[in-house]
């Protein structure tokens, strides 16, 4: 099992966190606890899905990004933009106009990540044909899903398709192209990925199956959106834009980051596209049990509606979906009329890219294993069952753990005490084995001093 720590882009600001525990309750891998009135992350369990970020009422969970000004460390500054970014803006803001603004903001080149979709698709289908015994094959497009499988479904890590994601393929392409065309070295080219989510950042900073990413920095989609929108406002009404050349995406490419976007291009006979992390978990449980027959390919996305539902997107995900569909429809029209060929600028580098598609092995990182030694793990499991039997099964969360099961596990792993449970405290008090001061102290350790004082302000 991998021992290097998982990088997490999701961070908790202790100064603004009010210990409301909403994040703790919603986390699909039970990776959060409350200690001293603040949310605390268990890094081995976190998959960077961002459900906590969405639900935090004080925005105390934030996504660390690189400083925008870092782009100026490089003479060549490439904005690697997912197509979904364009869908954040209303339809009267053209793609060309957005490109223009990105260049005004300081980027020298703009390229959409979906440029490499035709090659990515070909590579996936080729891998499937060359590995007929591995079924189902699971796409690694969504990094949160890759991590979900590593920690919660470690038996399925061999089913992950070990190929680079489109963002990396496109980064590889543009870096190589600029180096050749402009005769530059790597350290003169800065490639910056505009990310719709925390998981993509984690994938860039800490790639699975790779030592180093091809990208030099990450910029959050919401902060770039603000900058671009600010420029749009400054441009004012009736702005006459210059038509700039934009990435020639195919209609298929534009649709990739939407649900069903990969599945529709797969050669597989039986495939499923599932979005939203709880749906994915439910389905993977069945796949793991081999309850579902004849599955060839799985497209799995952590966010509802896939990337348009990414945690850093800036509009309602259904509106974004419709805009992206609209763009794909227009391109499909042009393709049908022969006004745009399906061939693509990356085609000239196809051979090179196809040769450099594979990533290293993706290792399981099970969060479920109690101990490496089966005999010790069995003992721990028995103890967990004993503790579980004494807990109320209400999953109230007052112990600072999301469920009674989680508390039982935490106790056996020396991260909590049985007396953290408020039901146990009351029972002990009733029997005279604990006094109220002791139980208040325990609650203070979990919830901090502030929650233990009467909130009502005296007049």
């Amino acid at each position, binding site marked *: 099992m991998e021992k290097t720590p998982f990088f997490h882009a999701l961070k908790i600001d202790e100064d603004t966190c009010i210990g409301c525990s909403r994040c703790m309750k919603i986390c699909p891998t039970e990776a959060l606890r409350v200690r001293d009135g603040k949310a605390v992350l268990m890094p081995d369990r976190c998959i960077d899905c961002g459900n906590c970020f969405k639900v935090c009422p004080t925005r105390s969970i934030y996504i660390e990004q690189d400083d925008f000004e870092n782009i100026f460390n490089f003479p060549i500054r490439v904005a690697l933009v997912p197509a979904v970014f364009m869908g954040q803006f209303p339809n009267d803001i053209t793609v060309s106009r957005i490109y223009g603004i990105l260049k005004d903001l300081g980027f020298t080149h703009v390229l959409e990540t979906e440029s490499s979709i035709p090659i990515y698709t070909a590579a996936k289908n080729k891998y499937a044909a060359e590995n007929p015994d591995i079924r189902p094959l699971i796409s690694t497009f969504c990094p949160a899903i890759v991590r979900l499988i590593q920690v919660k479904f*470690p*038996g*399925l*890590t061999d089913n992950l398709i070990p190929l680079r994601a489109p963002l990396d393929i496109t980064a590889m392409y543009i870096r190589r192209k600029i180096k050749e065309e402009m005769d530059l070295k790597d350290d003169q080219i800065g490639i910056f990925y505009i990310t719709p989510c925390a998981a993509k950042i984690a994938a860039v900073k800490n790639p699975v199956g790779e030592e180093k990413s091809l990208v030099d920095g990450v910029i959050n989609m919401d902060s770039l959106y603000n900058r671009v929108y600010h420029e749009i406002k400054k441009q004012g009404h009736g702005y006459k834009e210059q038509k700039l050349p934009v990435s020639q995406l195919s209609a298929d490419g534009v649709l990739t980051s939407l649900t069903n976007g990969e599945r529709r291009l797969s050669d597989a006979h039986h495939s499923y596209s599932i979005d939203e992390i709880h749906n994915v978990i439910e389905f993977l*449980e069945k796949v*793991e*049990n*081999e*309850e579902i027959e004849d599955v060839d390919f799985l497209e799995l996305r952590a966010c509802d509606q896939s990337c348009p539902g990414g945690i850093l997107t800036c509009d309602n995900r259904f509106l974004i979906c419709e805009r992206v569909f609209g763009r794909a429809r227009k391109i499909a029209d042009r393709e049908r009329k022969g006004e745009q060929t399906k061939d693509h600028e990356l085609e000239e580098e196809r051979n090179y890219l196809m040769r450099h598609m594979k990533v290293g092995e993706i290792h*399981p990182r*099970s969060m*479920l*294993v*109690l*101990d*490496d*030694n*089966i*005999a010790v*793990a*069995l003992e721990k*499991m*028995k103890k967990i069952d004993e503790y579980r039997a004494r807990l109320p099964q209400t999953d109230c969360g007052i112990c600072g753990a999301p469920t009674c099961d989680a508390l039982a596990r935490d106790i056996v792993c020396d991260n909590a005490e049985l007396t953290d449970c408020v039901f146990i405290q009351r029972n002990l008090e009733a029997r005279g084995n604990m006094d109220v001061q002791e139980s208040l102290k325990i609650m203070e350790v979990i919830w901090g001093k502030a929650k233990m004082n009467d909130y009502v302000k005296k007049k």
Partner: protein
Amino acid sequence: MHLEYQVYEADFVNAGAASSAIKKTLKQLNVSPQIIKRVVVALYEAEVNAIAHAYGGMIYADIEPDKIVLKVEDKGPGIPDIDWAMQEGNSTASPEVRNMGFGAGMGLPNIQKNVDKLNVTSTVGVGTTVEMEVNFV
């Protein structure tokens, strides 16, 4: 560690619940994913057999540090000729159950393929017991 699960006649909706629970347990014990898969596949077949071809029964699991011992005991019509039933394609399934997609005759052979020890005993008109062992190493 001893675990017990009851399975009910024709309860197709919940078929697999016991295998799922055992899988969850084994995942926490650092048993290799390949071995967990074999256990789950074998147990699932036995579980479905008890539900689809018999009148339900009990699943007993004993997890030891080096192996898992499973016993699936059903009340049901039983198997008249066990050697015959162990061959691929042979099934004692009723026409109604075949209509539902069960009874391809692959269950017992599939169990055999996945376990290290297998013992099937049966009394016609009373029921069938399937005993299986899978080693962890």
